[in-house]
């Protein structure tokens, strides 16, 4: 979770408090807080960490990083089902009822 992942701003919700927007991370879309990059525009790339955009990034670098993170398996780690992954690592069946685990609470 320490890595910040680049993504493309596809929508901005100006009425949200704090300011938020929809970010596309190579196919996976998630809401992120834009309060720290308040003048960002739709179509620009930002570096997002734990749901917060921290800086802008140019498109070329963003796409290169996304490719790398995918190769490293880090996108799966960041956006996949953490309970399933933990269960796999533990060599046990997934803990029941992880559906309500809140990972999609927003």
């Amino acid at each position: 979770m320490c890595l910040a992942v680049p993504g493309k701003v596809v929508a901005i919700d100006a009425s949200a408090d704090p300011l938020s927007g929809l970010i596309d991370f190579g196919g996976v879309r998630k809401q992120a807080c834009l309060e720290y990059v308040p003048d960002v525009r739709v179509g620009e790339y930002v570096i997002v960490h734990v749901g917060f955009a921290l800086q802008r990034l140019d498109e070329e670098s963003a796409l290169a990083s996304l490719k790398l993170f995918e190769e490293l398996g880090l996108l799966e780690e960041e956006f996949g089902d953490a309970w399933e992954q933990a269960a796999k690592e533990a060599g046990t069946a997934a803990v029941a009822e992880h559906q309500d685990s809140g990972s999609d609470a927003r």
Partner: protein
Amino acid sequence: MKYIDEFNDPDLARRLLDEIRATATRPWALMEVCGGQTHSIIRHGIDQLLPEQVELIHGPGCPVCVTPLEIIDKALEIASRPGVIFCSFGDMLRVPGTDRDLFRVKGEGGDVRVVYSPLDALELARSNPDREVVFFAIGFETTAPANAMAVHQARRLGLANFSLLVSHVRVPPAIEAIMSAPACRVQGFLAAGHVCSVMGTAEYPELAERFGVPLVVTGFEPLDILEGIRRAVRQLESGEHRVENAYARAVREDGNPAAVRMIEEVFEVTDRSWRGIGRIPSSGWRLTDAFRAFDAEHRFDVTRIRTEEPAECRSGDVLQGLIKPTECSAFGTTCTPRTPLGATMVSSEGACAAYYLYRRMNAPTPQATRAAREEMNPVA
């Protein structure tokens, strides 16, 4: 050159390597601070592509790895309580406490939930007014603006059932501690790019000056890392020790001022213990008095925790760059991602996990790498 064809731009990688080779006339030891960089280095075999004179030492830059056992045990204790919803990032689930982990606590009936952002935890507090929602606020400077915003919002919304279990760490004091250690061999740093995206580089010139080390702010892609190494070696060879920004596309000198302001409103600098390393002065953040009501350690009585580290685990030495993971006798035998003894084998950014995943038992064949990868992540 084993992995070089997998580089984004193999020709540029070759040129950078040639230049590093031509520049380095003496042995130099550089530390990459960030765990993400460690993974990128091992995955692409950068350490093996470098000329013999240039050695990379892996640093402590993985927040999951350095979260102290005592805090993990406090998290397990709070998460076990009835009425509590305990929220954490997914990569904390399997970090071993003294006798179990969060994954197990969930299996035993604790309400442990994985969130992607601290704002998700805040939302849970809003929608569950009759429950105590505790968020495990770990991380470096990169994570701090998010956690600061969450607690700031909680106060604004008057959410009395939300709190943070805080274990925040800061990079510059860790660099200072590493350089001050008698056994330190580090002569230059690749500073963590995303930490600097938030904080800027203002804290570094003083360190470069005091310890006479080049600090090159570096990104995560293999080419970024080679470029960082190239610049650090060039400085070392010419007897310089400056701060250089090799990741300017994401790092401004003043970082992100709005994020820094929010951190300073909510947190104050404090001493922190780092798992396996021990106490480092001024190396962390805690909530200021104004936000004390949102501190889980105040809200829950967790003073009777007794912790015990597994004796075999040498993650402290790994995190300080004193040994490589493969020098630990438990590596790959009693300690694997399935049966981890230390957090450095669990975390997605841990050095032991990187070696296990990409270079199992020092046998960097593509087959071994693939086998290890499949074992850790069968769907990949």
